[in-house]
């Protein structure tokens, strides 16, 4: 790689009347190549339906019919999962499966006003008490339970088994001057179950 960079510079030197500051800038522009050697720990990318476990494909086809589905594979150090993103009856769903195609949960994107009044009150009260300032930026209703049961519930058919509803809230918070985005999980009644900080890539390239 180093030899390659110098060959480029030598060629530039021999063929063009290039000044030293320009040559230095070109050399600095080549430096990021060493970053390519760094390892990668997490990745999400599109996959075709033929690469999926049959169970995952069958669940989505049975529950949502022939709607257009975008499939993603999420890899990290502990393994991988599959996620289907789709629109159905003007609602945005995200369906997650483990590596063998077993359903993990279904998430439905909703607005805060679509929350049950008591749940919304509980969540808003928590945010007011826990932080100086907080703003909900994304809210999803999360369904988990037996696959057949969830499929029936989503399709608003008669459900004869139990399933769980949680609410996943992404909120931008400020506490003692520190601004942190969190992903918060609440139960159906609005009680906090878990909280984790969202680590987002810096947006320097959109600001400067």
């Amino acid at each position, binding site marked *: 790689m180093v030899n390659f960079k110098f060959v480029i510079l030598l060629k*530039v030197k021999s063929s*063009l*009347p*290039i*000044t030293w*500051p*320009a040559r230095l*800038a*070109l050399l*600095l*522009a080549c*430096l*990021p190549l060493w*970053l*390519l050697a*760094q390892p*990668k*720990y*997490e*990745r*999400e*990318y*599109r996959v075709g339906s033929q690469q999926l476990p049959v169970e995952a494909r069958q669940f989505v086809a049975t529950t949502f019919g022939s709607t257009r589905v975008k499939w*993603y594979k999420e890899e990290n150090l502990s393994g991988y999962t599959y996620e289907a993103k789709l629109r159905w009856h003007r609602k945005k769903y995200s369906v997650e499966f483990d590596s063998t195609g077993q359903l993990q949960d279904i998430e439905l994107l909703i607005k805060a006003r679509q929350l049950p009044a008591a749940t919304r009150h509980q969540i808003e009260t928590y945010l007011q008490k826990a932080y100086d*300032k*907080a*703003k909900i*930026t994304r809210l999803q209703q999360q369904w988990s339970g037996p696959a057949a049961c969830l499929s029936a519930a989503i399709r608003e058919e008669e459900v004869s088994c139990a399933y769980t509803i949680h609410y996943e809230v992404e909120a*931008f*918070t*400020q506490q003692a*001057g*520190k*601004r942190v985005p969190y992903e918060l999980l609440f139960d159906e009644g609005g009680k906090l179950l878990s909280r984790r900080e969202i680590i*987002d*890539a*810096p*947006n*320097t*390239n*959109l*600001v*400067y």
Partner: protein
Amino acid sequence: MRIPIAFLYVLCVCMNGVAQLKNEPGGSIISFNLNKSLSSQLQLNAKWESRILLLRQGASSEQGLQYQRSDLELIATVPAGLRAKAGGGLLLRMQQGRLQYRLVQQYALVRTHGPLKVGHRFRADQQFAAGRPPRFRLRYRISAQLPFSGEKVDIKEFYFKAANEYLPTLRAANFDVEIRGLLVLGFVPATGHKLEAGLDARLSGTLLASQSLQNWLALSWYIPL
């Protein structure tokens, strides 16, 4: 790792068009952008930018690559509300042995809409140089970043970035609006780092009888510290 061939093709066609401009030679803008959090409130951004002109035969008595100028910009920002930042700083420009100063004030925010990230930047700057009247500008830039695959840009993945900026400018009694358009291909080689390459087109004299277009090959490296 899929390289978007169509994007590179469009870029090459555009750059070929650049080379055909006679009176406004373009070239390359190479920038290094360092960002450092000094505290939970205060962030410092340092940007080094150099311009190299590509002179073609016929456009000038000279031809080849020619170093034009370098800028060093330092901007400090603090939170302004939950998701926006306000700040100010100074730009020093070194060109042909002369130093120019620019004061900068800015307010910026970034919103996320699914996989799309949209940034809005409002800026004002005042430029001073010996022997020239000061120049005052108001600037608004909207920029958007979209990953090639998935909901977010992961390490070792590509993304598109497009930006559009409007720069009303007042110098002495002359008023003009410059319009800039940017289309780049970005790549994340490591956590926090971003490499970008693309076309930066700048149209000036939009309120005047004659307009001039300058096209640049923009190369940027964003580095977290």
